[in-house]
């Protein structure tokens, strides 16, 4: 795969860097983008740490988000507090399987997958795991794309709280898990966002390539 080797010339090696804001290729020497005056950084090695920290926090928060009830529903005076899982279970019980699947995917599967995916991704960078760069990137994109759908749950909650407010007769309120869950989503999103993906390419390309090449 000589083609690959040729094209694998890194920008930093030739004194070029990319403005993370306006994506202008600039000379490495300059500290600020000549177009948008954003600070230029060739490689953000600290982003790995940041991403890890956020990811770990999200992982921690995943527990209260699932253990604590996410909604408090007062239905004709009877107060029911639902965790994410009990809500899904309730939907299954009431034969709303498709919605249950969506909810399960969005609220449980996605955040867990995201955290697991990101931790693999970060581990791959940090510990230079021999994982195909392509696969990692594909996974990363999937994570980034699907991560926003995790907000579905919170969206439903916030919408319900705003609309269903009939006092003792029928009332929905967010429970503590909602905050935790929101933080999990936010932190995972941030963790995905904050990471400097160029580091993956820097560190893994050769090895991966070589491995692929060899």
């Amino acid at each position, binding site marked *: 795969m000589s083609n690959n080797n040729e094209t694998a010339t890194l920008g930093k090696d030739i004194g070029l860097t990319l403005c993370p804001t306006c994506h202008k290729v600039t000379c490495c*020497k300059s500290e600020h983008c000549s177009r948008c005056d954003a600070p230029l950084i060739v490689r953000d090695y*600290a982003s790995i*740490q*940041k991403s890890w*920290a*956020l990811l*770990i*926090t999200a992982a*921690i*928060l995943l*527990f*209260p988000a699932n253990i*604590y009830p996410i909604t408090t529903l007062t239905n*004709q*005076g*009877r*107060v029911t507090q639902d965790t994410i899982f009990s809500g899904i279970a309730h939907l299954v019980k009431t034969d709303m399987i498709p919605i249950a699947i969506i909810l399960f995917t969005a609220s449980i599967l996605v955040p867990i997958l995201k955290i697991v995916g990101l931790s693999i991704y970060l581990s791959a960078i940090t510990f230079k795991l021999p994982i195909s760069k392509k696969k990692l990137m594909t996974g990363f994109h999937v994570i980034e794309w699907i991560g926003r759908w995790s907000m579905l749950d919170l969206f439903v909650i916030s919408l319900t709280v705003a609309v269903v407010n009939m006092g*003792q007769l029928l009332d929905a309120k967010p429970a*503590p898990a909602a905050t935790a869950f929101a*933080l999990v989503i936010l*932190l995972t999103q941030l963790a995905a966002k904050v990471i400097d993906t160029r580091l993956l390419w820097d560190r893994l390309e050769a090895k991966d390539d070589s491995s692929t090449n060899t």
Partner: protein
Amino acid sequence: MTQVQTPKIVKKKLFSPIWLLPIIALALGAWLGIKSIRESGIEVTIHFPSATGMDIGKTLVKYQGLTVGKVVDMSIDDTLQGVDVKVLMDYRSAPFINDGTKFWLVKPKATITGVEGLDTLFSGNYISILPGEGDSRSYFEAETKAPVITPGVEGLIVHIKSDKLGSLDVGSPIFYRQIPVGQVVGYHLEGTDDILVTAFVQQQYAELVKVDSQFWNVSGISVDASFSGIKVNSESLASILAGGISFSSNSHSSIAQNNHEFTLFENEEEALGGISFNLIGDGSESVSNNTSIVYRGIQIGQVVNKRLSDDGIILSAKINNLYQELLTDSAHFWLEGADISLSGIKHPERLITGSVINFIPGTGAARSSYPLLQHAPESTNNKKRLLTLSANSNPGVSSGAEIRYKKIKIGQVLSSQLSDDFNKVVYQAEIDADFVELVSSNSYFVTESAFELDASIEGVKVSTGDLNTLTNGALTLVRGTDKALAKEGDNLNVFASADDASAFFHQQGLISKRLIHQDAADLSPGSPVYYKKMQIGEVTQVNWQANDNNFAIDLAIEKAFASLLTERTVFWRNSALAINASLSGVEVDVAPLMGALKGGISLGLLDADRVSNGKNLYDNQFLALSQAQIITLSVPASARLAAKAPIRYLGHKVGEVETVTLTPNLKELTVTAYLYGEYAASFTQQDASYSIVDANISLAGITAPETILTGPYIEVFPGSSSAKASSFTAAIASAFHNIDNALVFNLSNNTLGSVKAGTAIFFRGVKIGQVDSYELSPQGTGVIMQAHIENKYKHLVNSTSVFWDLSGVKVDVGLFSGAQIETGSLETILAGGIGVATEMPTSSANQITNEQTFPLNKNLEPEWLNWAPKQEL
């Protein structure tokens, strides 16, 4: 931009501050974890008899609406007698779950007073908890029913005692002026008779409950159906269905404390009818509990209770507060029921509702007990005139009988009863206002008989009254002549018939007079009283008087003859036939036939200047007119005294023997005699002397010759004592009575000779005195003769006088002188005599003193005849 780039020193950070984020998250998570473990709650097991209405995870435990726990598990207990319900309590409730804590199942309740927590209705039953004191524990036995909420600062808990629960239930509202201020929170049996209802009054209304507040039931609808219509009364729609209690509040009373006990009354009237009093009656046949007390047709109270006591029936009654000022000292209560009579039915509704107690207020302060009258009191209606009628016996008139005048009803009899002394029947009657003027103070009433049969020689007449008269009787008014109208309460007479009435008034027009006599004198009520043989009255009654063994005879004299009854009036018995036979003739007096049959009394008048003793009934006219006085004499049995023997004083008749009876010992006669009124005073001195005078035939003559025909009589001489007597002892021989102040002296002789009592004393042949009696001298040596010289001759005798015996014939025979016969008068020859001659003129020196004794000389000295002193008068 060609400046030299300064070397950029990048200090490699070991840790980014971003790592704080997971640390914080971790710390937060740890804290949350610890907190959730800490706040995981307390597990408590409650034992319920059944798990009905409870669901795991759904049934909550609530305290005052706050959820403090949740049922987490249920299992059948070991003995299969119930279920153990595992409850997870809020960790904050830990201090309240103690020995005294109570749990009970509250079922949702939708009552008419409101849905008790809409939430409960949908969320199902919940377990309620009442925190308690004591040690902490975790196993509880559920209460079967809700305990009473302990009074807190939120309100007041009061207990209301009732005899029945009615439609009250937990949650029934408490009203004050129809505002719900609280509710019934519980009830339970207190003993076997009472129900204690516990009520809760909200704090803001708690001060309305006073210590003397009255609570009454406002449950349901009070329907008062009577003949006057139907009255429906209810508090509020809620209380109609759910029951309720209302109460009153007296602004002056103090506020009730928690747990104060009240009594629940049946209704508002009863509750507010606060004034209790007693009615005391003889019977209570028509009185029941709740019998109304009515004033002018308005119910003002009712009988609460009745019981028997020593005084009769005591009815406890209450009068509404509203009318309490009507209850006064002179108030009257009486029973009034339906009045069914032939004239119609009054108050027909009372046939169904029972009698009522009618009431009329009076004046004064309220009393605690009143008599319950059987009939309306007199002053019920001022317009009607109430009269008291009295009759000797009930002529068939009962209460309700009409009083009529010319067959028109003018009133009615209200009641009839015996008078206090049982002598009369007393009726209460009322005269209608329109006819009051018909009844004057001397009007009277006559019974109208329903059936009148008048059979006489002319035929038989039958008349009947109306049917009402037949059952109740009726009275007819007979108007009086008096102009004064009968006043309220006047007593008028009732007569069985017009005849009775006229008889009564005839009797009314009589003057009564009482006479005293020692026997009933053959008299009986109805015996006539005559004046000059004309009946002017009659005897009304004859009564024996125990105290003096006499009879009291009451007379009634017609008013027309009132003038005959003066102080000069005397009465005597009318004998059927009075024959007055005497030497002067025979007088036959025949009384009128009526008097002869029934006995009778005559009346007469004394002479103008004499006064009768008023009360005596004399045996005959003569005695009466002479105002005889009765004396009794004890006479020796030898006296031949007979009834009608006269009592004489110096020959003048002053009295008459009435009866002569021999005493049982046969030694004496008891003589009842009359002294004629005018002399009575003179001969009733204690020392008046009575003696029997009988005919005495002797040579000296016949004394009292009339007694030979008429029998002996009694002579009387007045005494000098001032003391009066009515019984005397009469002697056979009359003692000398120095009536005209005669000169009394004694004569003595050795023999009596022919001297006797009555032997005359002669002075120059003229009788100037006599010997009254004689006796032996005490020594038996001679005879002492008591003699007297009449007053007018007193001066002829003095101490110089000499007395000699003139008796017999003196024959002096001498040889030379021949015989000389000397005699006195023939009388002296027969009866003897005593001569007297006086030597010296009488002077104060030689006056004879009383009882001086002279010798009686046998023979006359011739010289004595020559004495002729010139006496001075």
